[in-house]
């Protein structure tokens, strides 16, 4: 019994310590973004990787999800003669929830994993130590530009995903479900409110930040060898995905129930 309690206590302490390290790392990273020296080349490369190169996967994901959502709502709505709500539900579903969440998960899959693998490999091959001996702070040179890129790219990608998701629904609605294009667009625009859009973009900032932070954290804390790189990559994606979904719930509660 005592051993069992000791196990629970040790696990709780371990989780608390890990959370503490993560929070301290997050604070240090965000502080590093606003404190010189600034590495503009690295920030530019980060924006290219996190933002521009993630656009295709985000765009395709949102387009197909919006299209599928329109079909589902039409089929479901038909059960109680509510087929006409397709434009409104697609718009609110994509903008409030699916757009930000899909972008967060896509960044986690494409960017978090690559950041974690890159930094973990740098650690294993002593490149991080080399940076320090060359008087360069890895937090400012490697972490800050990537997290900054996540914070900037997140809302931009969400805006693109929202638009393409709605467009996917519009395509299906007008081409397969016989909606009038003008009416579909008017219903979409009239139904969306400013808080729907702003909450979506704020979620994008949060999810972009979480995804890049997790990649950096697990990359810099990787274990030894190929196994260490693999474990860091896997853990970073899992942690990013779980934190993004948890943050989505918290932000939704704040925006729409407060």
């Amino acid at each position, binding site marked *: 019994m005592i051993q069992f309690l000791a196990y629970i206590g040790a696990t709780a302490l371990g989780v608390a310590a890990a959370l503490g390290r993560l929070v301290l790392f997050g604070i240090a990273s965000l502080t590093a973004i606003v404190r010189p020296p600034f590495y503009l080349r690295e920030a530019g490369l980060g924006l290219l990787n996190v933002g521009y190169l993630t656009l295709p996967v985000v765009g395709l994901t949102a387009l197909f999800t919006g299209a599928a959502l329109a079909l589902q709502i039409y089929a479901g709505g038909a059960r109680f003669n509510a087929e006409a709500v397709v434009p409104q539900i697609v718009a609110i579903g994509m903008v409030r929830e699916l757009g930000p969440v899909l972008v967060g998960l896509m960044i986690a899959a494409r960017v978090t994993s690559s950041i974690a693998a890159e930094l973990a490999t740098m650690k294993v091959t*002593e490149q991080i130590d080399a940076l*320090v*001996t*060359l*008087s*360069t702070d890895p937090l400012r040179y490697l972490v800050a530009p990537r997290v900054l890129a996540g914070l900037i790219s997140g809302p931009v990608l969400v805006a693109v995903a929202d638009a393409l998701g709605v467009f996917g629904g519009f395509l299906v609605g007008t081409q397969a479900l016989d909606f009038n294009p003008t009416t579909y667009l008017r219903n979409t625009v009239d139904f969306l409110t400013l808080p729907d859009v702003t909450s979506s973009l704020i979620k994008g900032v949060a999810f972009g930040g979480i995804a890049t932070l997790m990649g950096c954290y697990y990359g810099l804390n990787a274990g030894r060898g190929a196994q260490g790189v693999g474990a860091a990559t896997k853990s970073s994606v899992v942690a990013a995905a779980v934190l993004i979904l948890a943050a989505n719930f918290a932000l939704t509660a704040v925006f729409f129930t407060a």
Partner: protein
Amino acid sequence: MIDLRGVHKSFGSNQVLRGVDLTVAKGQSMVIIGGSGTGKSVLLKCVLGLVTPDAGQILVDGTDVTTSDRDAFLARFGMLFQGAALFDSLPVWQNVAFRLLRGTLKRPKAEAREIALQKLQRVGLGPDVADRLPAELSGGMQKRVGLARAIATDPEIIFFDEPTTGLDPIMAGVINDLIREIVVDMGATTMTITHDMTSVQSIADHVAMLHDGVIRWTGPKDEVFDSTEPYVTQFVNGLPDGPIATLR
């Protein structure tokens, strides 16, 4: 110049350094020998502040490394890492000129490139490699680039971590000769860790043997091969029997 006093370091239950005492005089080439996993790399990393010792003191020119200005302190050092540790994403010349392109030692880009080309030439590499990526170079060339990066700012102190590991004997000899030439030319104080006795012969002024977390023996290079200290004798002659436990 470099003074280590009672340096201890453990990782969990693994006591790596158990009270290392070592002095390296200014301009001296000190080579630390010892088997794999005896803490040689950890010792160098303790001096550089990459690893924090659990106990003991490390002084450079009489100043405790933990109290000195970090940037000014590191600006005095150059280091060649075991696997060269070149930055994959940067071309060779930017690796060499890394310190000259940012921070307190920043120079104009053209000047930094010119210095990088000079240092590459110093280690026997032509300007044709300057714009290549590290992954396009052989192991020996990567070591040379790492060496060029270590000397790019003409540091007072240079550390070499296993400079010949993974190289064929001829390339190892070339790297050893380069290190010796550069050290003599620059008058730098150096610490080299190795288990390659050919490197000891080529590079060292003084030798120290690290085993079981303590310095077992230290003395001039000429004496290491004639030493009667059992640990040194076994290591230098590669004997399976002796005080150093071996796995078969």
